[in-house]
C-alpha cells in the first residue's frame, strides 16, 4: 500500500449537463497539509462533498486509507475517519457548545437508548467521559469556559473554532477544512493558520483545505492543487504555483500573464 491517505482516480460528478468534477486525479500523502484553490465555481466544494458522501460520484474511484468510499453514506465515511467543516458555518445552533462537541464524538460512542433508559453504569461512565473529552477539546481550541453557551450566540471566529473542535471529536485521520479563515480579520487569520499547523504537528491529522487567502495557502501548505471548471490545471509546491502562468490566467483571464510581465518590465 502506498503511503497516500487519499487517492482519487478519474472522478466525475455531473449536475445535468455540467461537469462539476471533470476526470479528477488526486493523491494526498499521509501527514501533509494540502490546499485546493481555484476561482469561484471551480468545483472545490463539490470535490469535498464527493469525499464526504454528500454526493455520490458518477465515475472513477475514491480510496481512503486503502478502502473505497464509493456507495458509502456520509455517516459511514465519518466513522472511517474523515471529518469536515463547512464553508458557511453549520453548527447545531440551538444546542450548547459542549453538546455540539459531544455530538461530534458520535463515531466513538456505543451506548444504546435501552441502556440510557435503564440508567446503566456503563452508559453513565460513557457520558461522563464524552463530556470530559468535550471539555478537553474546548480547551484545545481556546474556548474554555464557553461550554454552556448556545452555539449561535458565539462570535463568528469562535464559531469557526467550535466547528473544528466538533470535527476533532470524531478523532479523524483526515480533516477537510472548507475555507477555515473566511471572513476573519488578519489577526484571527494568523491565529487560525498557526492552529491548523498545530493540528497536524501535535495530533498527526492529515489536512486538506479549500482556501482563498493566499497568505494562508502559501504559508502552511506543502502541496497546492489548482482547480478550474472541475479540472486540475496545476499542482505543486506553493512557490511553483505562484508563478505558473496557467494559474494566473485562470484567476485573472487570458492575457493576464503577458500584461503582468509587461508591468514588471516597466517597473
Amino acid at each position, binding site marked *: 500500500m502506498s503511503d497516500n491517505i487519499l487517492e482519487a482516480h478519474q472522478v466525475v460528478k455531473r449536475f445535468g449537463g455540467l461537469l462539476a468534477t471533470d476526470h479528477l486525479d488526486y493523491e494526498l500523502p499521509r501527514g501533509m497539509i494540502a490546499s485546493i484553490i481555484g476561482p469561484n465555481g471551480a468545483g472545490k466544494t463539490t470535490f469535498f462533498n464527493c469525499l*464526504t*458522501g*454528500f454526493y455520490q460520484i458518477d465515475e472513477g474511484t475514491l480510496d481512503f486509507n486503502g478502502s473505497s468510499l464509493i456507495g458509502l*453514506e*456520509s*455517516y459511514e465515511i*465519518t*466513522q472511517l475517519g474523515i*471529518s*469536515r467543516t*463547512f464553508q458557511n458555518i*453549520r453548527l*447545531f*445552533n*440551538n*444546542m*450548547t457548545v459542549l*453538546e455540539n462537541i*459531544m*455530538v*461530534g464524538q*458520535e*463515531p466513538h*460512542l456505543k*451506548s*444504546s*437508548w435501552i441502556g*440510557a*433508559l435503564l*440508567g446503566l453504569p456503563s*452508559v453513565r461512565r*460513557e*457520558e461522563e467521559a*464524552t463530556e470530559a473529552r468535550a471539555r478537553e477539546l474546548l480547551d484545545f481550541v481556546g474556548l474554555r469556559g464557553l461550554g*454552556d*453557551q*448556545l452555539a449561535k*450566540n458565539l462570535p463568528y471566529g469562535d464559531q469557526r473554532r467550535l466547528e473544528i473542535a*466538533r470535527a476533532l*471529536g*470524531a478523532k479523524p485521520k483526515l480533516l477537510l477544512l472548507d475555507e477555515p479563515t473566511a471572513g476573519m480579520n488578519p489577526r484571527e487569520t494568523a491565529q487560525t493558520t498557526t492552529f491548523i499547523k498545530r493540528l497536524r504537528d501535535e495530533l498527526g491529522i492529515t489536512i486538506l483545505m479549500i482556501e482563498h487567502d493566499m497568505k494562508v495557502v502559501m504559508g502552511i501548505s506543502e502541496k497546492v492543487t489548482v482547480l478550474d471548471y472541475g479540472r486540475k490545471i496545476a499542482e505543486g509546491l506553493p512557490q511553483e504555483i505562484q508563478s505558473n502562468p496557467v494559474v494566473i490566467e485562470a484567476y485573472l483571464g487570458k492575457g493576464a500573464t503577458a500584461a503582468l510581465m509587461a508591468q514588471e518590465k516597466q517597473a
Partner: protein
Amino acid sequence: MNEELRGTIKTGLIAGVVTLSLGMIGILVAFNKRFIVTDAVTLADLLLFGMAVIAGYLGASSLKEHSMGRRLLHGGLAGMLAAVPTFLLILLTLVWEGIRDSFINVEPALVSLLTLDNENVVVGGILLIVVFGVLGLVGVGYAQLPVRFRRPISMSLAWTIGSGVMSDILIGILRPRMSNDTLRSLFGSTGLQPVPFVVLFVLLTAVFFWWQQGGQTRYQTLRQNFTPRQQKSSRRVSISLLVIFLLILPSLLGVYLSEIFNEIGRFVLMGLGLNIAIGLAGLLDLGYVTNFAVGAYIMALLTSSSQFGPENPWSFWLAVPICVVAAMFTGFILALPVLKMRGDYLAIATLGFGEIIRVLARSDALKPVIGGAQGILQIPAAQIGGFMAQVMGYILNPINNLLSRFELGILATNSNGDIVFGNPPQLYYLFILASLLMLFISRRLNNSRTGRRWMAIREDEDVAAAMGINTTNAKVLAFTLSAASGGLAGAIFAAKLGSIFPSSFELLISINVLALIIVGGLGSIPGVIVGAFALVGIPQLLSEFAEFRLLLYGIALIGMMLVRPEGLWPSEVHRREIHSHGEDETAVPVSVKP
C-alpha cells in the same frame, strides 16, 4: 393630527373592534352567566370593561414623556373609543329590525349588556362610552403605578378572579369539609361573595408584595445556606409531600374533577410521546392519532367479551404491553416510507396516515374484525384481583381508614376485595402511574446520547449525518418510541370507556396534542403538562368555553407565537437563550443574578 394622537385612536379602535367581535360571536352573552363576584360581576363584564382598562393603559403607556394631564387625556380617549364600535352596533339595531337574521348573536341580552341595562338604548350606549372613558382613566392610573406595586396587584387580581371563575370547583372541594353556612357566606351560586372577594384580594396583594419586597430573597438565601445534607433532606421532604399530594388528590377533587384530570392525563401521555418526534427530533408528525387508535383497538380486540374479542379475554395488564408494542410497530412501519421526507412534506404524509386509520376503522371491509362504525363494546375496566389485590388491600385499607376521618382517601378495594379502575377517582391512579412512567422515560431519553442525536437531526440533518450519526436509524427510533406513549394512552382510554368507536379517533386529536406541546413549549417536558392543563383542562372546567374551544385554541396559538414563541414553560435550552439575549444587552455575567 399628530403621531401620538393617531396612535391613541388606533389603540382605542382596535380595543373597540375586539370588544365588538367578542359580542358578535356570542362570547359576551355566553360568559355573562358566570359570576366572578356573586350577583355583581360576571366573566363578560370582566372582558368588556377589562378591554376599556387595557385600552386606557396602552393609550397612556405609549407616550412616555408627557404630563399627567395629557396621559389622562389620551387614556380616557382610548377608553371611550373602545366603546364606539359597539355603540355603532346599537345604533344599527335601531334602524335594522332584522339584524338577528344575519347576525344571530346580536340578541336582546347582548344589547342590554352593552347599554348597561338602560331602557333607552341610545342613552345606555352613551353611558357605556362614558363608563369606558372613566375606565380608560383607571388604566392610566394603573400604568402610572410603580412596578413594585403594579406586579403584586396584577398577580393577586389574577388569582382572585381565577378563584371567582373557578368557584364551582372550590365549592366542590370544600363542601365535604365545611358547614353549609360558612360555604354560603363565601360563595354564591357561582362566584365569590363580594366581601370574601375583597378580603382575598387584599390578602393576596399583601402576600405577593411581601414576597417581592424581601420574602423571596430571604427564602433563597435560606436555601443557599443549606448544607448539602440539608439540601438532600429538604428535597426528600418536598418529593414525599408531592407524592402524598398526588395520592390523595382524587379524593380531594371528587368525581367530576378527577375525570377532568384523567382527560388531562390522557393528553399528557400523548403529548410526551409526540414531543419526542416533534420537540426533540424535529419530525413534524400530524398523524399521532394513529398510535392512539392502534393502542385502543388492540386493547379492545384482546380484552372485549363481545364477538370481536378472543374466546378467553385477556386481562388488562397482559394486554397493555401488547398495545404499546403494537403502536410502536405501527410507528416503525409508518416511519419507513416517509424517511426521505422533510418538514412540510413529512407533515402532509403523516396527516394522511391519520386519516387512513380513521377511514379503515370505519370501513365495511374491516367491519367483521373491528366493528366498523358501531365500534367494539364490552371492554372490561382494568382491575386487580386475587392475591395481588389482597396484598394491596392489607396496605391500602388501614390508610384509607385513617384518611377517611379527614374526608380523604386513596386507591381502594371494593366489597369483593378487588381493585377496579372503573370510576374516575380510581382511574386517576392508572393515568398518574402511566404519566409518571412516561415522564421518567422521556427525561432519561432527553438527557442521553439518543436525545442528543435527535436534537442534532432537528438542527441540521445533513450535518448530523456528517458527524457520524446514522440519521435513518435515529429517525425510525424517534417515530417508534414516540408511538409507545400514544399506544399506552389508547389502551387506557379503551379500558376507561368500555367501548370504542371510530369517531374517537379524529384528526382533531392529533391537532390538540400538537397545539398543547406548542403552547407548553416545544421540546420541554414540563411544558407538555402545562400545555395539557391550559388547553385540555381549562376548556373542560369552563363549560361556557366548549362552544368556542377551537376558536380559543386558534387565539391561544397565534397569541403564543406573537408574544411567547418559546411556550409557557420553555425547555432548558430555550430559557438559556432568552437569558443570554438579556445578557447581550446588559453585559452582566451570569453569576451576578440574585
